[in-house]
């Protein structure tokens, strides 16, 4: 088991086209993202700025926006889905 990260189309160029990436041994959303940054060069700059997420990046754990949880400190466990999406849709 691991945490599954769903990669939006905008980021698939930096994940080698992968739409789902499994991350092992992460206890928080922040650690999940750190795991991705280690694996995929250039990913950090796309979605993060000054140690925080860029303002038009939304991250969800099992469908819940992490801003309703504990942000990057939100706990994750095996089997959880983490979804990264652009925030610029809707309305």
């Amino acid at each position, binding site marked *: 088991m691991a945490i599954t990260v769903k990669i939006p189309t905008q980021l698939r*160029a930096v994940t080698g086209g992968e739409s789902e990436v499994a991350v092992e041994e992460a206890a928080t959303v922040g650690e999940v993202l750190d795991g991705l940054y280690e694996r995929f060069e250039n990913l950090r700059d796309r979605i993060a700025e000054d140690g925080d997420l*860029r303002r038009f*990046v939304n991250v969800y754990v099992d469908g819940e*926006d992490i801003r309703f949880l504990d942000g990057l400190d939100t706990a994750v466990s095996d089997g959880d889905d983490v979804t990264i999406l652009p925030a*610029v849709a*809707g309305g």
Partner: protein
Amino acid sequence: MQVEALKCKECGTRYPLEAHYACDACFGPLEVLYDFSGLQAEGARRRIQAGPDTIWRYADFLPFESQPQTALAAGVTPLIRADQLAERLGIGELWIKNDAANPTHSFKDRVVTVALAKARELGFDVVACASTGNLANAVAAHAAAAGMESYVFIPADLEEQKVLATGVYGTNLVSVRGNYDDVNRLCTEISGERDWAFVNVNVRPYYAEGSKTIAYEVAEQLGFELPDRVVAPIASGSLFAKIARGFEEWLEVGLLTGELPIFNGAQAEGCSPVAVAFEQGWEICKPVKPDTIAKSLAIGNPADGPYALELARRSGGSIDAVDDDQIRAGIRLLAETTGVFTETAGGVTVATLAKLAERGDIGPDERVVAIITGDGLKTLDAVRGSFETHEIDPTLRSFEERVAGAPLAT
């Protein structure tokens, strides 16, 4: 030609004019970039005045090389001088832009007209949307008229009238067990997997351009003059920001002179992330879980919140919130003083207008325009029980006793 590219509002990266909505480099929103330097005001004005009675009279300012043909158009709705309401609120000059007078009874006909024309041009066969109701009506109807297949995603708790007025057009109606923000997230995910034109996801940069036509119409209907103040509702913030953009473009090409109006945004207290951010001095919005009767404004995670905040501050305006009772009262006030029956979003706008007037924000000589975005027949529950019906027997005596208030003279 004027339509140049898509450009990221955050970092300025340019993209070709395709179905693309978020910047690959920073996730910022893309918008249509124009070059109006070759556009002469007099020629533009002549083309507008000789144009059709639809938004396509403003084709010079929309993202197409030539004016598209659309089966079900939108726009050129009434701008009504509201003297009784102005007097009631102590406002000098007040106008109501009644966008309920569109084919599916809301301003969403404007944005969908543009989005579907662009979807066709880009070669899409299927259109889709995430909707709080009005957009659902519009996408289903315009897709039917254009002979395109459509998928409409709505929150499961939507008002019955909006559900019925969507399904009737023969769309694939998908009711999602969640709120609008859940529906929107789901549609953003689906848009990455299906080759569909989601009007408010992957073709959103074009869709949003349709809202500028409200500004063009208001200015044209005022005799190519600007109002001093605009009061408009905020859900995602896109409409609010694009009305200002419309005025700015006409100022740029010389169709208008003067200054950008003051912009006041209106939200419901049960879903007021932008009003709260305004009050707190934040540049971004903290998302909320909506709980309001104004379901068409119930977006807890507003995509254009930062731009709505920036506009309100830069224009000297504000973003205010009103509660559900004020919303109901706003619907009644507009109906009783103008003959316009609006939905809950319009109640939010009128209640906010009243709040601004009461607070003394509106100067005595100001020309104010309030944007009424949708029809009251779509949210009937909001007015149910708000007035008395006189039920009588079919006799003169019963009428005299129960209605006229005096017994029949003998």
